[in-house]
């Protein structure tokens, strides 16, 4: 849940990068950390993992400066993607204001994307939230792997399978090179701040 201090004109909200294991959530955060240095307002915490897998979460605090007279700070988190860490994902989701769902474009990861999206839906329900109402953006990551000869799913197919019902903004990306990462983040932040505006009228 965002912390909104209308007296001091400060907002602090939480954006969570969700998605199946190895889809590139941590890589997104690493790129943001590297490319948006001016916005980064604290240390990136990435807990050491076995074989590059996130076991708990990654964390990166960023500041967006003044928006409509409010000082806006955002806490970016990633969840562990592997199925067995469902309980940890529920913990990290607590108090979430917006979500970036990082889907893997590789054809072999098709089912993992769908399972993870279903898991997100269930975890949000447990917290009394709806996947249809929470600010959500989809990212189709690893588009660059097509050039290496790996079979990837066409964006149209991913849209059909993951976004047909949700109808949320979606972006192609290659988090390793940073392509699409900024657009995804910007869209997710816009939606989140709009949603907070509808709820708390902070921009008045």
């Amino acid at each position, binding site marked *: 849940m965002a912390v909104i201090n209308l007296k001091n004109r400060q907002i602090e909200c939480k954006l969570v990068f969700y998605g199946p294991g190895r889809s590139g959530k941590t890589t997104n955060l690493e790129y943001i950390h590297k490319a948006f240095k001016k916005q980064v307002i604290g240390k990136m915490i990435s807990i050491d993992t*076995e*074989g590059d897998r996130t076991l708990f979460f990654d964390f990166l605090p960023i500041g967006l400066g003044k928006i409509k007279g409010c000082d806006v700070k955002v806490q970016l988190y990633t969840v562990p993607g592997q199925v067995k860490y469902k309980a940890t994902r529920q913990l990290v989701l607590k108090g979430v204001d917006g979500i970036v769902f990082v889907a893997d474009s590789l054809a*072999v990861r098709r089912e993992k994307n769908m399972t993870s999206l279903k898991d997100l839906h269930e975890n949000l329900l447990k917290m009394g939230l709806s996947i249809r109402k929470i600010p959500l953006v989809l990212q189709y990551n690893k588009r660059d792997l097509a050039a290496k000869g790996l079979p990837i799913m066409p964006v149209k197919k991913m849209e059909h399978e993951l976004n047909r019902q949700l109808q949320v903004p979606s972006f192609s990306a290659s988090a390793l090179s940073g392509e699409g990462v900024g657009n995804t983040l910007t869209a997710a932040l816009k939606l989140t701040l709009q949603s907070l505006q509808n709820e708390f009228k902070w921009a008045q």
Partner: protein
Amino acid sequence: MNLGDKIKNYFKEAELYSEHGLLAEALERYRSVEGLVRSTRGIRNRDGILKKIAKKIETTSQKLQKLDGVQATQKVPEDAQSLMKEMYTFDDPEAKGSSTLGGAVALAKFGQYDEAIEELNRLLEYDKLRLEAAKNILWCWVQQSYSEYAVSLYQKWLKNKLFPPDELESIKSYFNELMDEAGVDHEIDEVESQQTIEPDSEVDDDEILDISAVKFVLPRGPREGEKVELEISFQSGKYIQMMISRKEKELLDSINPGDLLKDIVFYSPVAIFYGEGFVSSKSAISAGPKKGDFSLEIKIIKIVS
């Protein structure tokens, strides 16, 4: 696509999946390649190729197995622990220490049991938080499969009348549910536990000689049953402290706060004596040249001879 190209493509895919950490997918592709090569006669150096693929399959399987065995209960650095606590911190102006309770619960949920128990134990001092703190302490022990220890703890609270009857009833009902969920056969009121917790020391501070080292059997973990000898770095009466290097991970995992050490050999410059001790704390050193190493504290509770 001819068969040769198909094999080459599958192999390349397997290598790329492996490179990107998609080990299950890599394994599947290596197996497909193996199947194709095996079913095709006339491939040059067929046996050599099969041998190479078998090696890839073996290595990838081993990596997968290793990853499957990783548990999200490992200790995390202090800054990560602070963040975990922050996520769950709530401040109830009516209840002093409420933010600490939220933080301790968060640590417990993230599997940082030792730190959580340490904080929750402190919260037993606060009237308004005692009940929740107690329930969470029991939860932590049961999660770590120390159900018997949890029973002894509950019995100690019962005996010491730490809680009023209504709170005790609430704890009992919660505890029973917890044990049922864990599938533990239990009688929390009637059975005296074998273990003792936080026992009072029978030893007077003045009676204890200066101790230079101790030897005891590790009570749990990967080195359970093994005897270790540790040098004493600090002593204050019946409390003795030892340093353990962070590199000694197995040793660190084999002893925890709350462990009761039955047969300790105490070495002092003038005598060797035997007794029992209780592990009162294990904490990471946060500053100085030993930063990152651990300090283990044992409370001597009995001298046998």
